[in-house]
Structure formats: structure tokens, C-alpha cells
């Protein structure tokens, strides 16, 4: 590969990672999606339609909010990229609108999706309703219990939510089940994957659909910061889509890129190379190679792998990956709420918790500027942190 965060070619490799580790039955479907995406992405008409929907429907561009009071407390200039203000409340919509348009272009009539916390499921159900497609969302039985509200949202939006009762009955099993279902229905169904994961072209395509975060933020930083480019660009990492989209806008600059994972789901830090859900990357697994469950206070980060491009960025040193504890995250959520009036998603608060810690310890030098992607809003988390307050 020549330039970082560019087209990974037909093999879909990011250094040692990525690829297309799927059963033969899915190969034609993946190839067809890759071809359709290449074609669409080069078509100004498609780009226009996407931009129009993101603008008039999903609320883009999202603001870059200077966190004035918190900046003062931390001694750094903190800018928040407000993905929490998008329709459905997280960056997931950027990707889903893109893929739904692609599915429509390919003549597919149904979207399949996996979901953990339910954010991607809700976004998929939303895009399906918007374009008149059907949606089937796979969700672990345990997550269904924990995230009842998002299940209801999907129902209201007309999506079918299929409980997954196998394995740990959480996100990774929902991925397995979505893929199994896809294998059986590639003719009429399109698998709308929710992060920079899965077989080629998904990690690349999802990053491209999320690139809008980083590109907007970069232009907004140029207007906001004397130095035009922030010293740090920080985002939380579950699968890594909001981070990938953010980093894509800054990878060619001097900004230091930091991805922040949950301590209990830190594939970049504690994972080993492995193959899961169609791609090779860093994966949390036991000594025998059985994939382990990730655990964090943020359901959206409970994924035992990390997007292959992140593994590559880590190996090359272009991005750093850090972890924070659940306790730091909840404290960060409350602190942001009380200083800026923003209740952010627990996922996003991982990025913030790292900034708070790093600014406190001097690791981020006083006076530095930090661009942080606030990937989603925290309404969904309020009930669950009730006991932690």
C-alpha cells in the first residue's frame, strides 16, 4: 500500500490485516458489492444523492463545538465533533445511509444488520424505512433485554428484530447470525455492516462513508484553530468506524491520532492477530484461539475485534491506541454534562476520559488543541448509569 487510509485494492489488505475470510458462498456477493461500491463512489450522481440525504435528512454538517468551560478546566483547547446531533443520534447513520443507497442501486430489497447496543440497528431500520426497503436486524438475546428501548424503536420503524440465542448471545453472535442469514439470501438481501469490520470491501467502504466526519472536522478546525490543525485527534474505538472516519480526515496532517478502547474490550492493546467475521485483525481470544467476549460499560464497544485498518495504523505507529476504565468513562460523562450541557454516549466518553487523564497528567501539553469525535448521544445510557452516579 502506498498512502495510508487509501484504497486497499482488490485484496482489501491493510498491511497484514483485512482480506476476505468468508465462505465461498459469499465470495460473489462480496465481489459484487465491491464492484458496485467502486462504481458508485466514482459516480458523481451517487455522491450527490448521498450528500443530499446526509444534509437534508440526517443533519450534516454537524457542528464543531468548542467546549469552553471544560477546555478552561483542562488547560487545553477541546473541540467536539458533534455526531450526537445527527438523525438517530450517532455517526452510525452516515454509513447506513451510504450502504442503503448502495443496496438500492444494486436492486436489493432488504437490509440485514447486526447490532449490539442497538444504535446500528436503529440506523439501519431508519435508512430502510426512508428508502422503502425491508430490514432484518440480528441482536443477541442478552442485548435485547438490556436495550429494550432500541428494540422498540426498531419495531416502530418497521424492522424485524431477530433474537440471537447462540453463543454469548451478544454482538459477536449477532454478527455470526447475520452472516449466516446473508449466505442464504444474497439474492435479495444486502448485509449492512455497522463498523469497519467484515470482509473486503466493508472495512474500506465503511471508512469511506464515515470519512465525512474527518473531512468536515478538518475544515472546521482550519477555521477555528490558529494552527489550522489540532495537536490531537481522538476518537473511541469499538469496531472503529467513527475513529476511522475521523482519522481519514487527519491522517495526512501532523495531528497525533489516538483511538481509545474500553479496558475490557481492548483488542488493539490486548488482542492477538486472528480471523473473525471475515477479516484478519487483532482479536481478543484465549490461548487456544477461542474468541472471548468484550466487556465494558458501553455496549457499543463490546466487540472483541478491531477494524483491520486500525491494526495496521497501530503497527505502523501512525495512530496510538489507549484504554480507559469504566469508572473513568462514567466520570467523564458526568463532567461533560455538567460543564457543557452535553450528555454524550458512553462510547464517546471513552475518548473524553482519555483526554481528561492525559491533560491531567501533562501527557497532552498545556495549551494543546484536541479535536474529539463525540460519536453519539447518551440518552440511551442514562438508565444504565443511574446506579453508577
Amino acid at each position, binding site marked *: 500500500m502506498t498512502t495510508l487510509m487509501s484504497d486497499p485494492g482488490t485484496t482489501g489488505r491493510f498491511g497484514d490485516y483485512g482480506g476476505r*475470510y468468508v*465462505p*465461498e*458462498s459469499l465470495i460473489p456477493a462480496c465481489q459484487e458489492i465491491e464492484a458496485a461500491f467502486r462504481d458508485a463512489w466514482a459516480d458523481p450522481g451517487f455522491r450527490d444523492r448521498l450528500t443530499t440525504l446526509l444534509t437534508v435528512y440526517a443533519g450534516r454538517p454537524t457542528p464543531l463545538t468548542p467546549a469552553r468551560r471544560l477546555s478552561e478546566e483542562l488547560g487545553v483547547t477541546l473541540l467536539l465533533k458533534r455526531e450526537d446531533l445527527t438523525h438517530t443520534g450517532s455517526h452510525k447513520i452516515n454509513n447506513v445511509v451510504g450502504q442503503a443507497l448502495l443496496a438500492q442501486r444494486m436492486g436489493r430489497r432488504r437490509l440485514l444488520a447486526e447490532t449490539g447496543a442497538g444504535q446500528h440497528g436503529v440506523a439501519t431500520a431508519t435508512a430502510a424505512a426512508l428508502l422503502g426497503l425491508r430490514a432484518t436486524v440480528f441482536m443477541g438475546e442478552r442485548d435485547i433485554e438490556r436495550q429494550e428501548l432500541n428494540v422498540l424503536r426498531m419495531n416502530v420503524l418497521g424492522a424485524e428484530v431477530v433474537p440471537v440465542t447462540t453463543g454469548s448471545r451478544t454482538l459477536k453472535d449477532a454478527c455470526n447470525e447475520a452472516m449466516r442469514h446473508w449466505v442464504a439470501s444474497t439474492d435479495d438481501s444486502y448485509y449492512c455492516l455497522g463498523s469497519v469490520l467484515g470482509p473486503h470491501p466493508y472495512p474500506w467502504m465503511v471508512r469511506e462513508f464515515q470519512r465525512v466526519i474527518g473531512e468536515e472536522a478538518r475544515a472546521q478546525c482550519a477555521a477555528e484553530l490558529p494552527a489550522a490543525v489540532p495537536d490531537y485527534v481522538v476518537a473511541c474505538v469499538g469496531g472503529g468506524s467513527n475513529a476511522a472516519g475521523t482519522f481519514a480526515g487527519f491522517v495526512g496532517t501532523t495531528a497525533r491520532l489516538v483511538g481509545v478502547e474500553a479496558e475490557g474490550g481492548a483488542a488493539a492493546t490486548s488482542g492477538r492477530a486472528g480471523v473473525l467475521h471475515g477479516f484478519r485483525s487483532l482479536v481478543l481470544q484465549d490461548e487456544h484461539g477461542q474468541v472471548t467476549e468484550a466487556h465494558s460499560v458501553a455496549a457499543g464497544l463490546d466487540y472483541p475485534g478491531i477494524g483491520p485498518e486500525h491494526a495496521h495504523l497501530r503497527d505502523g505507529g501512525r495512530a496510538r491506541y489507549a484504554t480507559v476504565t469504566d469508572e473513568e468513562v462514567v466520570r467523564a460523562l458526568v463532567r461533560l454534562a455538567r460543564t457543557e450541557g452535553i450528555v454524550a454516549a458512553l462510547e464517546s466518553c471513552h475518548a473524553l476520559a482519555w483526554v481528561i487523564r492525559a491533560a491531567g497528567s501533562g501527557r497532552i501539553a498545556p495549551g494543546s488543541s484536541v479535536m474529539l469525535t463525540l460519536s453519539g448521544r447518551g440518552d440511551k445510557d442514562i438508565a444504565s448509569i443511574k446506579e453508577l452516579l
Partner: protein
Amino acid sequence: MTTSLETFLLARRATGRLLVPYVTAGAAPGWTDVVRAYADAGADAVEIGFPFSDPMLDGVTIQEASDRAIAAGTTVTGILDEVTALDVGVPLVAMTYGNLVFQRSGAKFCAALAMSGLRGLIVPDVPLEEAGELADAAVKEGLDLVLLAAPSTPRARLGEIAARSRGFVYALTRMGTTGERDEVPEQAARLGRELKELTDRPVLFGFGVSSPRQAAELARHADGVVVASALMRRLLDGARPRELGEYVASMRRALD
């Protein structure tokens, strides 16, 4: 036994249809007796599943068998130890997922399999494009890396798969995951015909072979069948090796 999987199967095919039953290693105590019972009942080879936490191509039955096996402490090393002591007169073929294969490296995994006497390897989530190194390592260890072909595979690609597969070509009867189904899909017949035109290697149908009648029907379009879920469901329901052997024998009779 030192003959390769493919040579062995070609020889068997000369006299009849091929039957390859499957068992998930560790899904029940004494699972090696199941392997023996299969062989005794007339299996031409036995497929041994190395259980993985996230078996993307498997249906509920084999998922459950895998979960049970893992919960019981089954590991690759443990399986290999048991298999080493096992000689049932027909070749044993490992079936597992990429993550277990690439734990250290494909080469080391193949070496370990070969050392334990296994003759073949099936890795459903390692398709043609990703199989290069692994295929080389397998050749080096005298292990046949079996590739899959699907009803969705275009003809040109089928040719490549047929050319690069070793041991046999694993033809998927349908686009869904494993599990029992009643009908024999038309697409299976077509896939079987095409593969037979493209290669002299044995072509075996797998996925959803759930009755002797159906096995016989499928085998008409190819060289034989792999039977998995139908057996594993019985095993999960408490069937003993002898009963499983009887079921395989009934398949055998249907095929002959």
C-alpha cells in the same frame, strides 16, 4: 495409512458412492468411539470438527455441539493427542475455522495435523484468495486442503476451485448454513454437473444431507455426500456411538 486423502477416495469411488460423516471433536465424551463407529459402518473418510467459538458457516446444531465441546475444555492440542492414537482404516479430515488455523501459522497447524495422522483439512472461511500460503503448507505436509464450491460460484471460478482443491471438492448443496433440510435443491444438481464436467477429483455434497433417501438423490449428481448436522443432532440428543453407526450404515445402504 500413508495414501493421500484424494488417492484413497478415488480408489473407493471406483467401487461406489462416497460417504463422509462428521463429528465435532469433544462434543460428547468418547467422541473417538463415534469416529470408529462411522468407519465400521462403512464411511469412506471421517470429518472431524475442531470446535470454534464463532462458527460462521454452521447452523444451530453444530454451533451447539461446538459450544458444548469448548465448554468441556476441548482444545486443538487435546484433539490432536486423541486423534494420534486413532487408526480407523479410513482417512480423517479436519474441519475448522481460520482463527484456529492461523493461531501460530498455517504451516505449523498443517504440520501438527499431519503429525497426528490427519489427511485433509477444510477451512470454510478461507476461500481461494486467502488460501495461498495455507495450500502451500498443506502440500508440504502431505495434507489435502479441501476447497468449497457454492451454488453462487461462477463457472470460471468453479474451474479454479476444482483445480486447486485437493482430496475432494466440497460442493455446498445450498446457500444457507449447515443444518437439516428436506428438499434437494435444483441448484445442487446443477453445481454437481458443472463440477463433474470440470474435474476428475471426487465431488462431495455437503450441507443439509439429512436422510438416506436424500443422500442417495444427491449422490446421483456427484460422487457422494458429507453428513453432519443429521448426525450431530442425534449425538446431542444422546445417541450412543452404536446408534450413530447404525444411522451411517443406513446411509451407506442407501448410497450403494
